[in-house]
């Protein structure tokens, strides 16, 4: 495919440019990234499909409002620096978003081309631009000079947590010259991007590089500082931080509430993925954190985390990985691409099945699960059809490992240690949807600790709103 000559009009309506991937048979045996990214030629071939709409609907579909036609036009013009700058104006983590955003329901879902043909592969192009620019020179690219804007130490802001929402706040404020200190509880920075999303979907080196780019902008990072324990929100305010942003993510994994959940071999998705991703258990014993490599694995849930857990179990050498989901395949909240990849890799789908009971041996090891057949009933409050039990229709699935990926609840550490902070009945922090401010002046919150488990990009969208408001107040 040639990418040199201006593209004839007809070509825009052609299929999107595929992105090279590792073959399923090879990738299921390794933890390297599945999608390999565009080459410059492929990127340009895709970029020229963009219609450069005057009122781009794609931009409305983006929670951080990236000027999408703007950066794509610069790819066409061979100006990758310019393209990166356009993206970074509103998005602090382009290499991450290019990989993990559900573009099909956001920017790409709004693309005019998509109405009759295939939408522009905006996510792949974003990733291409970011990868081309991930380096310590982000500072230079962003400011046009060798140095970033002078950091004003007198205007300091604290972020608790170093996941997508906090990093967005840090990146945005640092670009305005505001001093930001990020407090992270774990030993590694990135939050869900490093403990949750697997290496084969988002290499940790990418996250590190995005963070290094922020460090070069003057953001200070402190690991092993537990918000609410090592330091509390009131203490940060006393220490002179002009604003505190709480972006601690979700926590407290939910279990299924059926007998046998504490058998050995039963994991929450958070534990399983944290062991493998943060603890690098995939290279045990070279890395010290162990994990059980199940041979027959059943994963519960239908979201992206369930897909990540299932595909991780395959890579650890499982003979069979079954995904049990209470509703049908069309109802699964996972990204279509993730489900497609997982099926290619051999995932066995058991839709319309929910767990009744886990069984174990006398030493406490998991040996199987009894599943209940379900059917779809009337839509519930979430708008999805409610799963209804098919009485008497059950089956047994033998398994030596099970992973529960049915969501998380609110982590109590911050609310418990921040007297007066308003939380809702589920324990999530209440924040103004427009500004992210909580009921405590100067204290902002965003991401999963406000909304409950959601996506990386929606957390970033919340971070961006809060950052704008903080900057407006501090800089006037």
């Amino acid at each position: 495919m040639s990418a040199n000559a201006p593209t004839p009009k007809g070509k825009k309506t052609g299929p999107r440019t595929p992105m090279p991937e590792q073959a399923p048979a090879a990738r299921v045996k390794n933890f390297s990234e599945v999608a390999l990214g565009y080459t410059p030629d492929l990127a340009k071939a895709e970029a020229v499909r963009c219609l450069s709409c005057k009122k781009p609907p794609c931009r409305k579909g983006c929670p951080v409002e990236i000027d999408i036609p703007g950066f794509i036009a610069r790819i066409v013009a061979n100006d990758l620096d310019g393209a990166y700058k356009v993206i970074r104006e509103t998005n602090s983590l382009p290499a991450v978003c290019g990989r993990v955003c559900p573009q099909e329901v956001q920017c790409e879902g709004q693309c005019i081309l998509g109405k009759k043909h295939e939408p522009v592969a905006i996510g792949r192009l974003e990733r291409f631009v970011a990868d081309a620019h991930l380096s310590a020179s982000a500072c230079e690219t962003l400011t046009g000079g060798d140095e970033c804007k002078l950091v004003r130490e007198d205007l300091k802001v604290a972020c608790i947590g170093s996941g997508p929402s906090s990093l967005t706040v840090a990146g945005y404020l640092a670009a305005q010259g505001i001093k930001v200190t990020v407090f992270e509880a774990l030993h590694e920075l990135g939050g869900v991007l490093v403990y949750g999303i697997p290496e084969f979907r988002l290499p940790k080196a990418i996250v590190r590089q995005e963070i290094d780019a922020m460090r070069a902008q003057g953001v200070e990072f402190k690991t092993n500082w537990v918000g609410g324990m090592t330091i509390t929100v009131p203490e940060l305010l006393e220490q002179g931080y002009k604003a505190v942003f709480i972006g601690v993510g979700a926590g407290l994994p939910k279990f299924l509430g059926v007998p046998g959940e504490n058998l050995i071999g039963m994991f929450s998705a958070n534990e399983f993925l944290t062991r493998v991703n943060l603890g690098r258990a995939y290279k045990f014993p070279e890395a010290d954190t162990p994990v059980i490599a199940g041979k027959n694995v059943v994963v519960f849930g239908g979201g992206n985390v369930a897909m990540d857990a299932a595909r991780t179990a395959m890579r650890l050498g499982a003979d069979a990985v079954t995904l049990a989901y209470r509703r049908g395949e069309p109802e699964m909240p996972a990204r279509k691409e993730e489900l497609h990849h997982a099926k290619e890799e051999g995932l066995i789908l058991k839709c319309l099945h929910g767990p009744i009971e886990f069984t174990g041996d006398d030493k406490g090891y998991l040996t199987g699960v009894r599943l209940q057949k379900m059917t779809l009933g009337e839509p519930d409050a979430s708008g999805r059809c409610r799963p209804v039990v098919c009485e008497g229709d059950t089956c047994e699935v033998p398994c030596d490992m099970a992973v529960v990926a049915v969501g998380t609840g609110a982590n109590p550490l911050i609310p418990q240690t921040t007297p007066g902070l308003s939380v809702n009945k589920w324990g999530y922090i209440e924040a103004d949807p427009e500004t992210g401010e909580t009921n405590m002046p100067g204290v902002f919150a965003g991401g999963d600790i406000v909304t409950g488990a959601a996506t990386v990009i929606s957390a970033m969208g919340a971070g961006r709103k809060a950052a704008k408001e903080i900057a407006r107040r501090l800089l006037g």
Partner: protein
Amino acid sequence: MANTILRKRSLIPGTTSELVVDAPHIAAKARPGNFVILRVCPDGERIPLTIADADPTAGTITIVYLVLGKTTAHLETLGEGDGILDLCGPLGRATDIHKLPGEVICVGGGTGIAAMHHIAKGHHKAGNYVVGVIGARSRELLLFYDELKAICPEVLVSTNDGSFGRQGLVTELLQERLKNSPLVSEVVGVGPVPMMEAVAKVTKPFGVKTTVSLNSIMVDGIGMCGACRVSVGGKTKFACVDGPEFDGQLVDYRELSQRLGAFKPQEQRSYEEFKKSHVCKCTHS
């Protein structure tokens, strides 16, 4: 260097040591019952250790560990002046301590004695009459006797071989004390799972409040993963954020023991490989 080891004391040569670590921000907040999570090397495992003592003025915390696997064996190779790569805390809910009408009996076994010490000290500071009850297989394996002597008007000791104190188990001493004492407000038990289970069994007929501190397997220690979950009164609780202390009568000890062994084969393999590489280094030098 951060988290510098200021003092190291071998409590039981080769198996148990005490470290006093420079960690001002943790020391400032550490309360009895809290723990830390540490990591010794890149690609190392996060392990929880109870804070045995804290000195906010000096900015130090004291931790005591039994060499049980790779991470603790690696920790044992560090000396004064070395830094601990990652140290995070204080974690967990602090012990519920206030002035009580009757005495508080603090029972400790093995390394648990060190963990119990911080709780006993807290009760002592709150003005409670604290009776220490500690046990070990033999005299040279008994920890923190002098430290407890300094805060408890009475320290009762048992050893399996009778080399120090009474020959027998701590639970026998505990039972006698419960029978003979006019008013016991609370019993605290920290030690191996069978000991804590036995403590709860002994206190049950007396109807006295019994608190145990659980040492479940943890990964993050901040309520994210649920590795540390335990059944307490039929409900699943997270030792890291709901505990680590629970009502001793309600804990499912059998499940706790089983779950503590979940990674035994991997832990052994990791430890064996570490010992090989460590021995290797020594013979070559």
